[in-house]
């Protein structure tokens, strides 16, 4: 892997982020809007309803982290779709650029975008509802890492699907995370799901991350069990996503899909 080629992909997508208003909206608008909406909703729920202390923090923390997950996997697929829409893949892959360098560049850009979005959302949460994410951050980091790895796995898998089926399935970039949302138990504990769905939820690294974070916010400390379950599941999903992507890329090259215009 050559760093200058990874840098080229980073530069290409940073230029896009600067010039494309859609990408600015994706990076800043939705994270901020989400936190404002969930902030007001949480405040409304706590007024005279006798909810447990720290409820607002839990909701806001969950909203920030869900937005992070959603943004990361969407941005990965959208970065690829951008190159597909403008028929730039032929130009890129007729150079020495390797697939791994292309993906590495996209991942770096997504991390930068997530940092920008999360910083904006956290600043709003702090300014409007005095929810300061910084004291929690060190304890959250292992769970955040698990969330990011899972979003990477989902992003890689969706990008693979778009490689294979082109823009016909591009809606997955925006919609697939929604499918995982009910079993990720972002705003409610796993125990609130029906029994059969709880079993599904425990197969999701996200459910372990959010459950672990709720334990921290409730003052019960860091749960190694939830962390290791999440990490183990991630190892499986991430490996599967990479294998799927490698297989689909070869298939795409075999079928001439790389040079298809859309």
């Amino acid at each position: 892997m050559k760093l200058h080629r990874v840098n080229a992909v980073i530069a290409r997508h940073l230029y896009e982020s600067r010039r494309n208003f859609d990408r600015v909206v994706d990076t800043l608008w939705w994270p901020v809007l989400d936190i404002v909406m969930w902030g007001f909703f949480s405040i409304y729920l706590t007024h005279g309803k006798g909810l447990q202390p720290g409820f607002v923090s839990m909701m806001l923390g969950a909203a920030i982290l869900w937005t992070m997950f959603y943004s990361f996997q969407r941005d990965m697929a959208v970065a690829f779709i951008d190159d597909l829409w403008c028929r730039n893949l032929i130009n890129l892959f007729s150079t020495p650029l390797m697939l791994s360098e292309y993906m590495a560049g996209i991942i770096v850009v997504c991390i930068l975008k997530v940092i920008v979005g999360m910083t904006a959302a956290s600043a709003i949460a702090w300014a409007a509802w005095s929810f300061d994410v910084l004291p929690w951050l060190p304890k959250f980091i292992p769970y955040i890492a698990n969330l990011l790895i899972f979003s990477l796995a989902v992003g890689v898998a969706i990008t693979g699907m778009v490689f294979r089926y082109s823009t016909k399935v591009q809606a997955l970039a925006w919609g697939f995370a929604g499918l995982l949302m009910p079993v990720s138990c972002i705003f409610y504990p796993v125990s609130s799901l029906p029994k059969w769905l709880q079993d599904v939820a425990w197969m999701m690294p996200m459910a372990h991350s959010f459950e672990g974070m709720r334990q921290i916010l409730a003052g019960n400390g860091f749960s190694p069990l939830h962390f290791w379950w999440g990490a183990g599941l991630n190892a499986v999903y991430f490996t599967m996503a990479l294998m799927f992507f490698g297989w689909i890329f070869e298939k795409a090259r075999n079928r001439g899909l790389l040079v298809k215009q859309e």
Partner: protein
Amino acid sequence: MLVEVENLGKTFGEFHAVDNVSFGIERGEIVGLLGANGAGKTTTIHMILGLITPTSGRISIFGKSMATHRGEILEHVNFTSPYATFPFRLTVLENLKVFARIYNLKRPRERIDEQLERFGITKLRDKPISGLSSGEGTRVGLCKAFMNDPKLLLLDEPTAYLDPEIAWQVKNTLLDAQREKGTTILYTSHNMDEVERMCKRIIFLHHGKVIAAGSPIEITQAILEEEREEPALEEVFMRVVKGKAA
């Protein structure tokens, strides 16, 4: 031989896009790849670039197999086609900077300015691609194609969308590159006069197969099956398309 293509084949399901094609290109040659739409020209070029995996056969460039040395080979190869466009919102300069980074050029800005001047589009440097005409976009593609000073240039209809004056300038630039730097060029075009002027040798494809190869006059005589003193590729093309050859 700079390029060696041996028994190259590509099938998509039941369809044989390229069928047992073999040819070689010497260093510094300009070779025309001709044929009607669907003859297999673009698929052949895409296989040479590694964008499509061949079903059979072998491609070797600079004496190395494309299947095993793709990255190494493509450092010294470039390509352009009017059908491969650039990100619309990025400016011409930003797009070319991306490719300058990919090729790890030492003085990228200098190199970009040289290319923009070469193709007469310096004034478009800070314009987004979406604001360019088709001909201007084609010239940005040509700037990209010369960015790494390639030893092998694959040009898929490089003068499509260009007005005659600009097309003439582009042809001269290509001939200069071949004369001064010994650039090897594989060229497809539907403009037969252009091919006659540019190419010393032509490979004629029809339904994925090579039906004739040689100089324009040899191709003319072989396909029209009569003695001619001047090449008549337009006539040859019409004869092939109407199915009177092969």
